[in-house]
C-alpha cells in the first residue's frame, strides 16, 4: 500500500514535469522556466493568440513558434542570466473573451511583454488592456493594413507598403494594366485597397473594378462575370475564406486563367494553398516576408523550418500568412532589445526595441525603423505552380514599412 502511494506520487510528479505545460484555468497555459535562479525570478513572456475558433490554425502555429523560440533562448542561457517563462492565453477569436484573458496575463501573471493578436479587430480590442491600462509592452506579429501608431505597440508583420511597392509593378509587368479589386467588407481590404490603388495608378495601371462583399458571401457569379466582361488582367484579391475558395473556382471555370488572367492575393501562404485544387489557382502570385521554398537557398530558414517541424509535426504550419514569421521576428527583436537595455522595465526595453536589429530571421534580417515601431524586412514575390510556390522576385534589400 505504501509502495503504491509512493509510486503514484512519483508518477504524478514525473507526469507534471514531463508535460511541461501546466493548465492554470480555462485556456491558460504556463511553460515554467527550466531552472530557478536564486537571485532573480524568471522573465515572463505572455502570448495572447487564437488557440480556438475559426483561425485556430494560425494561433496554434504562433504559440508553437513562441515555445520554440523561448526554448532556444533558455537553452543558450536565458536573458540577462534569467530564464524565460512562457504564459499562453487563448483569445479564442472572440474579443470579449480575449480582453478577459489578456487581463489575466497582465494582472495575475504580471508578464513583462505580450505578443499576439492576429486580426486587426483583436489587436484593437487587446491593445488598451495591455499598453494603456496594463502599462506593458505589446508586439503585434501579423501582416495588416497599417496605421497602428500607438506608443509601446510594435508591429513585426508586413504593411501595405511592403506588400505592394514591389509586388504591384511586378504584377503590371507579368499580368497587365487592368486591375480588379474584389474585397471582403472589413477594415483590412478597405485600407489596403486605398494604398494598392495609389501604387497601381502610379505605375501606369488602372483599377477597373473595386467592390466589397459580406464576409460570408460564397457565390460570386456577378463578380466573375464583371471581371470577365471587363477583360481584367489582374485580380488583386482581398476576399477571405470561406468566400475565396468558391470565388477562385468560379473564376477558373469562367476561363479567367485560360484567357491569361493573373490572380494575386497578398495573404496567400502555404496554409491557403489547400483551399482550391492546384489547377484552379495556377499562377497565383503572393508577396510575403517568407515562403517555405526559401529553405532551399537560405540555410537559416532551413534551420528554423526544420526545428519547427521537428518539435511540431502536424497541421499547424510555420507560414507567413498566419503570423508565425512575425512572431519569430518579434520575439528575437525583443530579445535583442532586452540584451541591449540590460533590464526589463518597459521604458528601457521600448527604447532599445525602437532600433533593434536581428541579423538572421525568417526570410532574412530585420530591423525596426527608429521612431516608427514598424519593421523593415525582405519581401518575396512567389507564384503558385502545381500546388507549390516558386520565388519569382525579391526585394533588393530591406523594404521600408512606411508607417507612422
Amino acid at each position, binding site marked *: 500500500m505504501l509502495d503504491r502511494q509512493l509510486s503514484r506520487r512519483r508518477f504524478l510528479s514525473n507526469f507534471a514535469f514531463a508535460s511541461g505545460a501546466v493548465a492554470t484555468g480555462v485556456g491558460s497555459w504556463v511553460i515554467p522556466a527550466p531552472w530557478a535562479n536564486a537571485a532573480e525570478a524568471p522573465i515572463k513572456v505572455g502570448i495572447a493568440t487564437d488557440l480556438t475558433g475559426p483561425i485556430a490554425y494560425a494561433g496554434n502555429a504562433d504559440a508553437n513558434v513562441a515555445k520554440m523560440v523561448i526554448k532556444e533562448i533558455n537553452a543558450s542561457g536565458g536573458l540577462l542570466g534569467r530564464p524565460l517563462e512562457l504564459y499562453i492565453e487563448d483569445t479564442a477569436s472572440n474579443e470579449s473573451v480575449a480582453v478577459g484573458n489578456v487581463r489575466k496575463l497582465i494582472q495575475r501573471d504580471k508578464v513583462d511583454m505580450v505578443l499576439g493578436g492576429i486580426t486587426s479587430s483583436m489587436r484593437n480590442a487587446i491593445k488598451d488592456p495591455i499598453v494603456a491600462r496594463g502599462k506593458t509592452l505589446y508586439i503585434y506579429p501579423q501582416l495588416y493594413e497599417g496605421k497602428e501608431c500607438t506608443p509601446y505597440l510594435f508591429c513585426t508583420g508586413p504593411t501595405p507598403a511592403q506588400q505592394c511597392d514591389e509586388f504591384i509593378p511586378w504584377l503590371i509587368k507579368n499580368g497587365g494594366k487592368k486591375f480588379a479589386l474584389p474585397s471582403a467588407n472589413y477594415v483590412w481590404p478597405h485600407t489596403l485597397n486605398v494604398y494598392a490603388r495609389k501604387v497601381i495608378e502610379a505605375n501606369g495601371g488602372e483599377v477597373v473594378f473595386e467592390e466589397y462583399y459580406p464576409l460570408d458571401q460564397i*457565390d460570386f457569379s456577378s463578380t466573375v462575370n464583371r471581371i470577365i466582361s471587363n477583360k481584367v488582367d489582374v485580380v488583386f484579391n482581398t476576399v477571405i475564406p470561406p468566400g475565396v475558395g468558391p470565388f477562385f473556382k468560379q473564376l477558373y471555370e469562367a476561363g479567367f486563367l485560360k484567357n491569361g488572367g493573373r490572380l494575386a492575393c497578398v495573404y496567400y501562404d502555404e496554409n491557403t494553398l*489547400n483551399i482550391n485544387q492546384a489547377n484552379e489557382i495556377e499562377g497565383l502570385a503572393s508577396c510575403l516576408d517568407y515562403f517555405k521554398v526559401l529553405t532551399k537557398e537560405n540555410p537559416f530558414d532551413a534551420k528554423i523550418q526544420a526545428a519547427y517541424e521537428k518539435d511540431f509535426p502536424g497541421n499547424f504550419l510555420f507560414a507567413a500568412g498566419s503570423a508565425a514569421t512575425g512572431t519569430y521576428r518579434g520575439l528575437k527583436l525583443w530579445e535583442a532589445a532586452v540584451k541591449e537595455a540590460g533590464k526589463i522595465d518597459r521604458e528601457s526595453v521600448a527604447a532599445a526595441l525602437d532600433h533593434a536589429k536581428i541579423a538572421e530571421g525568417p526570410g532574412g534580417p530585420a530591423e525596426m525603423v527608429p521612431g516608427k515601431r514598424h519593421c523593415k524586412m525582405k519581401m518575396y514575390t512567389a507564384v503558385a505552380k502545381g500546388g507549390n510556390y516558386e520565388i519569382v522576385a525579391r526585394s533588393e534589400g530591406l523594404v521600408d514599412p512606411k508607417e507612422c
Partner: protein
Amino acid sequence: MANAFVAAFEILSFGAIIVLIVLGLGIIASMMGIFNFAQGEFVLLGAYITYVAYANGLPIWAGMIAAPFLVGALGFVLEALIIRRFYAAPIVAMLGTYALGLIIRESVRGLIGGFYLTVPEPIGGSIDIGTMHISAWRFTIIVITLLVMAGCYLLLSRTSFGLRMRATLENPSLARASGISTPLMYGATFAFGSALAGLAGALIVPVFSLYADLGIRFLIQGFVAVMVGGVGSFIGPVAGAGVIGTLSAALPWLMAPVVADVLVFVLAIAFIKLRPQGLIAGKGV
C-alpha cells in the same frame, strides 16, 4: 445575350443549391413540426464524409453516395435518443437541436484542424458553349436537384410510405388507431430529412470546399426560405428556397453585394408580414 444566359445559369445554379439544402429542413419542419437547428451540421457531415472518402483514396462518387445513408442513419439514432423527447415543446427542440449542431460543428472543426480543405468535383471543368463557360459540376447539381425534388414528391404523394407519413403528421392518434407506428414514422421522417441534408453536403462540398462553418452558413437562409414558402407542405419550403436562392444570387448583379445581402432579408420579412402563412399555405404534399 450570352451574358444573360450565363447570368441565368449562375442564378439558377445557386437557387438549386439552396433548394437542395432546404429540402431536408422543409420536410422535417413540415411533417414533424419542429425546426431542426442541427440541419446545417448534417449538411456539414455529408461534406465531411465525402472529404474523408477522398482523403483515403476512395472515389469521390463513393463518398457522395455513402454520405446520405450515413447521415440518415445518424439522424435515425439521434431522433430515437434525443429529438423524440422534444416533440411536446418545439421551442426547447430548437435549443436542443442547436446544441446538437454545436457539438457536431466543433467536433468537425477539431477533426479538420480549422482548415479549409478542397475536394475535387467528380465532373470537373467547364462546359464551353461558344465563348461562354459554365461550370460542369454546377450543371450536374441542377440536374440532381431536379431529380431529388421529383423523387421526394413522388415518395410523399404516390407511395404508401408517403401516405403514412402525411397521416402521422395530420392526425397522430387516428394514425395510431389505424395501425401506423407513429414513433417509427417520426424516426423515418427525421432520418429521411437528415439523409437529404447529407446528400446536399456531399454535392456542394466541391463548390465551397470543406470548413466547419459550411452548414451554419446556410442555416439562416434555409429558415427564411421555409418561412417564406410556408410550413405544412413539402412544396412550400421548396418554393421558398427557390425564391430565396434565386434572389440571393440575382440581386448582386443589380446592386452592391453588401446591400443585396441585407435586402434579401428585408424583402423576406416584408413578405412574411403581408402573408404570414407563406407562399403555399395548408397541409398536403
